[in-house]
């Protein structure tokens, strides 16, 4: 009801509102416009509904009645009806407006709308049951547009008809009225459109989701896309893994590249890439070995000791280089006067020589181990006279071949040397063996080169340290160091010295750890008892032969060195289980502290007689301290469970370990 004129219910009465008196308010105007629009919409709805109900049997779906789900119906019928209705309405409105001689400002919209309707008419050609979903979607969107246009057109007609409204004796500008009316109706129109869209969308998706072909196609597409993406991701990850394992492949020309980098010292910019180059060298050897898989096959041909040796060598070289770089950087950055230079030189050579000794010790151990391994693993050496060249001589040959040759050519030479003169069967074995031992040879050769060089010669260790100050490699820093810069402060110098000490200490500690790990792993993985004994002797010789190495051995933490044999006497156990558990825990603790041999004293009741057997089994199966402790935990938990259920028939710990290790 209009607030000012409740009797007005029809468009004809609306004109009476727009009296020349101009008493009609804006609210009244909006009310009438709204009313008109609602009437138009309701009429359209009714007309559509009537047509749908009285029309073809296929017309079950409409934009407003979507209750019949799942039935196939001609979706374009609705839009068609709507289009026809809208077209008729427009025609009528246009003719009416033309007849009334009004200025039709919405002519452009009407034109567009009519054009679209005509196009719709021509395009659909009275097809009541289209099967194509695309056509269906198009028809839906067109129908919505028709509806929107119809509503807008009706509104526009209403507005235009009420433009004669005056307010306070003045005519209200048409644009103002239009704007207000449109704003008033915007919400309703949009809401209506959204509602319609959602209903239609629901129908569409409901139908589609029940279509098994469509669903399977979607799944297949998704799966294909996902599979492709997963494959890409996996490939990328593998590439990264391989690059991480093998290092960036660069143009490595010789096996001695890493060594050359090391030899070049701190002045060589390649030092930064030393580890990469070493890895590249390894990768090249991998390619030579025809290992087609990416990372593992190369490593599979190596023993654990070799892998560790390789790792330690690389690590040592990197650390060595880093340390040198650190020295260089420190010296470059913190230029000091001559008297302070002396302080630096007092620190650096001693620690450097210590580090050198440690490296030499490690290298000699690795060399010895590889040599021993070559002797032990190459039975054809003696049987095949033509291929009797030992690894030492082979490596010597490698050295003769020179650092300029690629490792591939060296490898080929190695194959030829080993395979050519011998019998065919032996040759095959030799080739297989040689493939396996190529890495050993290369490492061995590299080590020998390193050891033969003067900077790593045991005899020249001290001299080289002293010479290092005058060495051309370090001469770059010297002029800077000798510059008389008086502004260098004492505090900076002290920081520098302490930093040097700290860095050298860390470096040496790491080296010591690496060396000792190597020794332990060599001892652990060595199958030959005699070789092990020799190795230990060799290690002792190396340790005693090297002044700094011996000092380092003395100064290092006992937990990192195989300590003395330990005899344990327990005086506190009461039960058998406690006694066994105590012994096992002590065994674990002793293992953590690298006790080589643990003896238990006072086993008069025979409770610990199985302990040696257990330890042998654990060592044989490669159990670590953590593994063993976890086994003990399992036992304890099982025992708790047994106790909880009242099961008294339990195994003792050592029996359990024997059965479960």
């Amino acid at each position, binding site marked *: 009801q209009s607030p000012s004129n409740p009797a007005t219910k029809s468009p004809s009465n609306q004109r009476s509102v727009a009296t020349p008196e101009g008493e009609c308010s804006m609210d009244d105007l909006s009310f009438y416009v709204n009313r008109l629009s609602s009437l138009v919409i309701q009429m359209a709805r009714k007309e559509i509904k009537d047509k749908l109900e009285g029309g073809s049997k296929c017309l079950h779906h409409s934009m407003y009645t979507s209750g019949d789900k799942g039935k196939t119906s001609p979706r374009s019928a609705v839009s068609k009806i709507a289009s026809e209705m809208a077209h008729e309405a427009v025609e009528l409105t246009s003719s009416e407006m033309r007849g009334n001689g009004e200025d039709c400002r919405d002519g452009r919209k009407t034109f567009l709308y009519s054009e679209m309707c005509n196009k719709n008419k021509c395009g659909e050609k009275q097809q009541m049951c289209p099967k194509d979903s695309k056509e269906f979607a198009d028809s839906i969107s067109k129908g919505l547009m028709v509806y929107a246009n119809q509503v807008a057109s009706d509104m526009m007609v209403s507005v235009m008809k009420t433009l004669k409204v005056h307010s306070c004796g003045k005519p209200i500008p048409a644009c103002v009225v239009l704007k207000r009316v449109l704003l008033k109706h915007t919400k309703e129109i949009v809401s209506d459109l959204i509602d319609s869209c959602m209903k239609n969308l629901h129908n569409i998706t409901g139908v589609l989701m029940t279509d098994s072909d469509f669903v399977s196609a979607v799944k297949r597409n998704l799966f294909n896309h996902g599979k492709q993406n997963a494959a890409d991701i996996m490939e990328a990850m593998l590439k990264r893994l391989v690059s991480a394992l093998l290092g960036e492949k660069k143009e490595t020309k010789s096996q001695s590249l890493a060594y050359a980098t090391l030899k070049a010292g701190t002045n060589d910019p390649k030092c930064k890439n030393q580890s990469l180059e070493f890895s590249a060298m390894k990768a090249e050897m991998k390619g030579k070995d025809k290992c087609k898989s990416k990372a593992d096959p190369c490593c599979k041909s190596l023993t654990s000791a070799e892998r560790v040796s390789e790792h330690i060598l690389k690590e040592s070289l990197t650390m060595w280089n880093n340390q040198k770089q650190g020295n260089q950087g420190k010296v470059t950055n913190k230029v000091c006067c001559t008297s302070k230079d002396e302080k630096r030189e007092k620190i650096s050579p001693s620690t450097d020589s210590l580090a050198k000794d440690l490296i030499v010790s490690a290298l000699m151990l690795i060399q010895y181990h590889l040599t021993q391994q070559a002797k032990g693993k190459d039975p054809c050496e003696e049987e095949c006279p033509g291929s009797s060249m030992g690894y030492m001589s082979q490596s010597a040959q490698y050295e003769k071949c020179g650092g300029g040759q690629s490792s591939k050519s060296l490898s080929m030479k190695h194959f030829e040397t080993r395979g050519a003169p011998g019998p065919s069967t032996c040759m095959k074995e030799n080739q297989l063996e040689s493939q396996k031992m190529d890495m050993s040879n290369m490492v061995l050769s590299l080590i020998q080169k390193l050891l033969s060089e003067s900077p790593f010669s045991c005899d020249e260790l001290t001299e080289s340290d002293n010479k290092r100050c005058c060495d051309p490699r370090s001469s770059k820093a010297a002029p800077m160091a000798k510059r008389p810069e008086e502004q260098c402060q004492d505090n900076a110098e002290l920081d520098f010295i302490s930093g040097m000490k700290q860095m050298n200490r860390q470096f040496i500690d790491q080296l010591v750890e690496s060396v000792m790990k190597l020794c332990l792993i060599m001892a652990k993985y060595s199958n030959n008892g005699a070789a092990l004994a020799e190795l230990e002797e060799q290690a002792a010789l190396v340790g005693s032969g090297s002044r700094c190495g011996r000092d380092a051995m003395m100064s290092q933490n006992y937990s990192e060195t195989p300590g003395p044999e330990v*005899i344990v006497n327990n005086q506190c156990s009461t039960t058998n289980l406690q006694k066994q558990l105590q012994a096992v*825990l002590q065994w674990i603790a*002793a293992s953590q*502290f690298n006790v080589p041999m643990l*003896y*238990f004293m*006072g086993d008069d009741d025979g409770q610990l007689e199985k302990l*040696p057997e257990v330890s042998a089994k654990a060592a044989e199966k490669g159990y670590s301290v953590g593994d063993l402790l976890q086994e003990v935990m399992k036992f304890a938990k099982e025992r*708790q469970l047994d106790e909880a259920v009242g099961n008294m028939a339990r195994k003792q710990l050592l029996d359990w370990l024997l059965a479960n290790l």
Partner: protein
Amino acid sequence: MIAYCGTTTMSDDIDWLHSRRGVCKVDLYSPKGQQDQDRKVICFVDVSTLNVEDKDSKGAAGSRSEGELNLETLEEKEIIVIKDTEKQDQSKTEGSVCLFKQAPSDPISVLNWLLNDLQKYALGFQHALSPSASSCKHKVGDLEGDYSKIPSENCYSVYADQVNFDYLNKGPQNLRLEMAASKNTNNN
């Protein structure tokens, strides 16, 4: 007089469950088969299994328990390592006695009591295996009474010039420890 010093607990930092160290060899001790070489004897003694009379009457450990060091008040996580600082010429065998109180085995948390015991044994090994002439060994009387002032540390080393173990006696109650104190100090 016996010197002792508190030490840090390095074994706390060990991640036992994930330690990748290999296990060592184990054998039963047979005196006849052993050659004279560098060995260490570690005697683990649970003080809660010792009766008071023995403790009070036997050896330096007992005498200390009457005075400054009362073993009955020893906490579960504490361990006292009594070390012999002099190698005997005939055997080269160094000895250490690790006194500790065994923690009750908590039936709920297996890991806790296992690690607790393991840590004590580790402390024992750690201190018993460390060189006797380490910096931890202070001169006699330097740190007298200081051990009680370091409650956060749960291991003490007590150094004696000589420790004699009576291995022939069997059973925990019959363990006899004798420690010879330094000559140039007052002997309690």
